[in-house]
């Protein structure tokens, strides 16, 4: 209170002084962001444009070409792998969701919601290096004797992905569910909906923003991962990330790799855009969230 009184008192001393100060303030404070933004332009945006340039040029002649993208559809091998990646990512996302949603419900329910340590235990593995977690799964798989052939190889890879990405699905679901106004579910039951009807008619629709960000945090990272397949699978289980990684490992493949990276970038932009559209609609009608 006293501060603000002070401010106006001094500011009234002279209108000119006030003007000068405001201007100075306006420039100075937003200017604090410039070092980072400038570095971002140099080290993040410019590299993406260079990558784009590579994607449209020939590796030998340096001439403009669409050939790098043609590779994607020629013989369909790369696009097939992208298809497989999307399918594997879909399966992983669905399994993660089916496991994480009931768990998030349980953790945010009145019976358990004061168990801070319990919630913490589930979120902690997120901070452990994903390579380590993949390695741990590898040991479990070898104890279980899951073979590295045929369809079983996919079980190995999907299990690794689910185990790796599970906390990233759980966290947004838990935070949206634990932040949800309890009186809404009570109101639903009060109006005659059974607990199951309440789950589908109220809780689930209201947790859409959490579901969307959970899906976002699992789906695309699964498509672009290469380590899990490298460690647990073989060339059959290559994700799109593996292909990009491979092209960049050979010195002549950078242009094609850039083209594929560009395709991945577009895919990500599209999913983020769709996610934003879904949640935006939700937050407009659902201001509480």
């Amino acid at each position, binding site marked *: 209170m006293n*501060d*603000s009184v002070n*401010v106006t008192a001094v500011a009234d001393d002279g209108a000119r002084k006030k003007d000068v100060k405001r201007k*100075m*303030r306006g420039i*100075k404070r*937003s*200017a*604090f*962001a*410039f*070092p*980072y*933004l400038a*570095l*971002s*332009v140099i080290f*993040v*945006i410019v*590299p*993406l444009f*260079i*990558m784009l340039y*590579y994607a449209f040029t020939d590796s030998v002649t340096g001439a403009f070409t669409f050939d790098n993208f043609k590779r994607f559809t020629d013989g369909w091998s790369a696009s097939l792998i992208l298809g497989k990646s999307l399918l594997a990512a879909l399966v992983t996302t669905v399994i993660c969701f089916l*496991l994480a949603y*009931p*768990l998030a419900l*349980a*953790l945010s*329910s009145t*019976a358990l919601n004061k168990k801070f340590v319990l919630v913490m*235990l*589930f979120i*902690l*593995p997120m*901070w*452990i*290096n*994903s390579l*380590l977690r993949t*390695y*741990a*799964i*590898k*040991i*479990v798989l*070898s104890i279980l004797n899951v073979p590295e052939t045929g369809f079983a190889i996919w079980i190995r890879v999907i299990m690794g992905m689910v185990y790796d990405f*599970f906390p990233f699905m759980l966290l947004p679901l838990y935070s949206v569910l634990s932040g949800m106004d309890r009186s809404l579910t009570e109101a639903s039951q009060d109006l005659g909906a059974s607990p199951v009807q309440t789950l589908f008619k109220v809780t689930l629709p209201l947790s859409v923003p959490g579901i969307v960000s959970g899906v976002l945090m699992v789906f*695309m990272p699964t*498509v*672009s991962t*290469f*380590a899990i397949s*490298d460690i647990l699978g073989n060339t059959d289980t290559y994700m799109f*990330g593996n292909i*990009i990684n491979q092209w960049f490992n050979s010195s002549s493949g*950078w242009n094609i790799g*850039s083209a594929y*990276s560009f395709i*991945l970038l577009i895919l990500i932009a599209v999913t983020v855009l769709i996610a934003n559209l879904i949640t935006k609609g939700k937050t407009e009608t659902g201001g509480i969230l």
Partner: protein
Amino acid sequence: MNKNVKTGVVWSFVALMLVFMYLPIIILIVFSFTDARALGVWSGFSVELYVDLFNNAQVMTALGNSLILAFVAAMLATLLGTAAAVGIFHMRKWKKHTANFVANITMENAEIVTGVAFMIFFLVVRLPNGWITLIIAHTMITVPYVILSVMPRLSQLNPNLYEAGLDLGASPMRSMFTVIVPQLIPGMISGFIMAFTLSLDDFIVSKFINGNVSTIPIYLYNALAKKGVDPTLRALSAVLFVAVLAVLIAMNIVSAKRRKKQLVL
């Protein structure tokens, strides 16, 4: 009765998920105490893997590199990120949207794309891969997380504080450092910790630009991707697991206690 059954089902599900999350880690730790070469085989208790591990110069160098890199990158990211948060917070409309968009690029982009973009860029500008490229890349990818943890503190701040500093005769810089920055310290600390952990964790971006500097995740990846896995990795993983878990649990307990104290006050 019915309610008890329900609570029982809920608890057993939670317990089962906890087992799903931690059993692999526990198994890995258990098998780090046996020296069988093959995975999942128990050939008697032994600490030999740990002896091997601490005598492994490669691992020790990688560990040192990782810690130095994470510390330097997190320091730089905290400075840049805090300043950026203050700046973005005071921007309006399209400037704010644009700045947020820029900060979001590395967060939402696939790490592999970020990694290869860095690789191509450093090649084009003739910057040889190594410490410099690693520090630049790690700083750039962790700054957004610092911004994320500083921003909420800023919006809780009394908007008149900075003006009060100016009115009392402080220059803008001075007002910023003596009035605003002290208020942001908790956000900066959690931002630093986040940046540090993310940097320690990263291997996808590092893999493309590390030159001949090895870090722990890169060492791990190279060892794991080769199919005949070196058994000392089990000991290394166990040590890392325990270290990370211990630090995280300690940090969470401290912050939980602090929160409680604040509530009491």
